């Protein structure tokens, strides 16, 4: 039966080529625009570490003075050196890491390459195990290297390719800012997007090539890269003594109960610091897990959301357009439908037949929409934004394209089909 309906649908669509083309183009444009923006939104609002994100938390404290104090203020996004070190030493979480961004000048051993600046991460050892960072060669450093301010470094796969042709570079020396650092590990393919653990540098497409112990970076006076929020006489300088927040503190807590206990610990710590006179403000702490953190930081650009709304509005216009055209077309065929009714076809059969016709329009529109979405995403990738290289269609979005196209066209077909199959068999036969 379905084959017969399909055949009839194709015949009917061929009869009004211009109208069919108009409906297909309308659906294709609506789907193309929607899928382009939805794909970008999907890529940008994704979970960077889907397996473990619910156990990772960003800790926030409020060490600021009373200047500009409001009860409803959120604590700063980062922590001070003193608080970061205190929390690290307390070891009250399952894993914890204190880190900040940096930038180091790399002087390649081979003279063919000019010196260049590479984004860096200065962090404590748990960073790698906590974020489940894959290693291609070697391993991370441990607590002992942190304590000893060891001159060791882990580099990214990309930097390893650039400097050492992708070989096993363990044991070789990296000259950074005039200091020799021993390479102990090379990362595998690891580029979490968004760059959740430090949103002060670049939200998307950040690729740090150099990872070294935080203590070592302080010893060698390596340059800080990121923001420093200061109060009082802080002059935006990221140093241990300045009244500034410039480090990120992340913890891993395996259960919600552990998270609650940690939150209590943060409150207790703040009270203690207030009693000592270090925190002038009343305790104000937050412990957000990874996805809550991204939401709180509004990482998805407002423009992208706006474009998605716009595209969905456009799809709606295209849908209404197609619905009107389909209604006119189906009603025009009332005589033919009347004949089929008179010959014994049930209303239900007519309804299904007409829906198959709209489904065919939807599939054709979906195919066109897919092409337009690929074109749209190609245009997005050419834009000079952080997230441009990420805009690719994946399997889920491909499926969604056809589901959306088919759903939209069936939705556009339901009302016209319902209206058209209500013809009474006798009435239409009279005139002929």
């Amino acid at each position: 039966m379905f084959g017969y309906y399909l055949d009839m649908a194709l015949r009917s669509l061929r009869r009004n080529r211009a109208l069919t083309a108009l409906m297909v183009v309308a659906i294709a444009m609506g789907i193309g625009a929607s899928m382009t923006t939805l794909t970008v939104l999907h890529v940008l609002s994704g979970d960077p570490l889907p397996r473990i994100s619910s156990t990772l938390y960003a800790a926030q404290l409020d060490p600021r003075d009373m200047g500009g104090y409001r009860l409803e203020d959120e604590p700063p996004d980062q922590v001070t050196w003193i608080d970061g070190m205190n929390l690290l030493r307390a070891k009250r979480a399952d894993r914890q890491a204190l880190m900040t961004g940096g930038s180091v000048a790399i002087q390649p051993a081979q003279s063919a390459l000019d010196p260049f600046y590479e984004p860096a991460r200065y962090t404590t050892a748990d960073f790698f195990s906590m974020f489940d960072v894959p290693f291609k060669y070697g391993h991370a450093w441990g607590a002992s290297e942190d304590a000893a301010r060891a001159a060791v470094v882990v580099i990214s796969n990309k930097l390893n390719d650039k400097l050492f042709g992708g070989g096993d570079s363990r044991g070789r020396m990296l000259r950074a800012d005039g200091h020799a650092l021993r390479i102990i590990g090379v990362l595998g393919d690891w580029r979490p997007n968004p760059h959740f653990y430090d949103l002060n540098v670049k939200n998307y497409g950040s690729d740090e090539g150099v990872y070294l112990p935080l203590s070592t970076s302080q010893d060698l006076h390596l340059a800080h890269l990121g923001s420093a929020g200061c109060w009082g006489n802080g002059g935006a300088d990221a140093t241990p003594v300045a009244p500034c927040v410039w480090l990120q503190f992340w913890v891993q807590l395996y259960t919600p109960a552990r998270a609650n206990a940690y939150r209590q610990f943060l409150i207790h710590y703040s009270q203690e610091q207030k009693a000592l006179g270090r925190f002038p403000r009343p305790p104000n702490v937050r412990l957000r897990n990874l996805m809550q953190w991204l939401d709180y930081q509004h990482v998805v650009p407002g423009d992208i959301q706006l474009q998605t709304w716009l595209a969905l509005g456009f799809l709606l216009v295209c849908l209404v357009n197609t619905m009107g055209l389909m209604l006119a077309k189906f009603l025009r065929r009332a005589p033919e439908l009347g004949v089929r009714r008179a010959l014994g076809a049930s209303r239900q059969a007519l309804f299904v037949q007409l829906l198959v016709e709209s489904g065919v329009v939807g599939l054709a529109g979906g195919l066109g929409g897919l092409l337009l979405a690929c074109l749209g995403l190609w245009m997005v990738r050419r834009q000079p934004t952080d997230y441009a290289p990420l805009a690719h269609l994946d399997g889920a979005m491909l499926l969604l394209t056809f589901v959306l196209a088919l759903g939209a066209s069936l939705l556009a077909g339901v009302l016209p089909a319902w209206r058209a199959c209500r013809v009474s068999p006798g009435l239409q036969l009279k005139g002929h």
Partner: protein
Amino acid sequence: MGIRPILSTLLRHKITAALLILQIALTCAIVCNAVFLIHQRLQRMDIPSGIAEHDLLQIQLAYIGDRPDAYAQAQTDLATLRQIAGVQAVALANQLPLSGYAMSNSGIKLRPHQQHESLQVASYYGQNLLSTLGVRLVSGRDFQSEELLDLKAVMPALHSSDLKHLPHNVIVSQAVAAHLWPGQDALGKTIYVGNDIPLQVIGVSAPLARPDALQLGAQYSIVYPIRLTSTEGGSYVIRTAAGDRERVLASALAALKQLDPDRIVLQQRTYDELRQRFFESDRAMAGVLLGVILSMLVITALGIAGLVSFWVAQRRHIIGVRRALGATRRDILQYFQTENFLLATIGVALGMALAYGMNLFLMQHYELPRLPSIYLPAGAIALWSIGQLAVLGPALRAAAVPPVVATRGS
């Protein structure tokens, strides 16, 4: 010709007519808001930086490792750059307007111990800053070169609250002066930053835009009498004639490389490129919006044309009868035009309400201002014209139906 027969025909095609009205309404609402969004972006891209944009170059360098002699090196660099033919002035600045990244902001208070800051401003500093950028002083004076303090000495003084080694003077932009002391002379007034560090206003500058966060007030900026080096994030700003920019940039880079080959060039560009980069996303957004508006108008026009073509084909017999009964071609043409005008009018009326609703939603979620009412009639005229344009083809075909059709069977 009366509207009554048109209405009664439309009432027999209730659902189709309703769909057409809905489409016109949605298009009108979305187009009004999208055009408004484009206007907002264009307005933002028009912000004056206040500096001699087409005459400026920026070069940012970085040393490898510590450089104890950075201040001496900076003076040598500046002197060398000034020697290059075509160079009018050279500055070493901490940041530039509309560069997209603020190195330094300050919270200003008007009294010591004031609980909340009066204004958040961008803080500029550096050597020969205002004269090189081409920002004129409205009143007061610029800093003398011997008044400038070294940033490396200011930082420790700041931490120990050693007022003696901190700046005592400041230059504020006109916008800051007007905000803090409306209708008064700003010269000689005192502002407080950080832990109540007092600064006396010695000059008021013409507008000078901030590097980013324009929503905090695009022209709120102040200038400190501090100088810095490229190790502290400063960059060289060179003023030259617009036509000489490329040549001067190349010579400047060569000269700096010759002075010290072990430096990495982080940034080398004209100010126009910098400004272009800052507004890139706005330009892209405006392009996307324009594309969607045009596509939507085309789809709607084609939809109207398609639907009316159908109606014309469906009513051929009736049109023939009317023609046989004495209706002129003009009458038939007008019939379809009036019908479309009626549909568009209802659609536009509905669309205005929808446009207003959408604007409310956008105001709540994306910090947009209210839609100016001029957009509504403009949207209405656009939709009316598109409707009339779309209906013209099918209506002309209807008018061409000969009266003889009436004599044939339907």
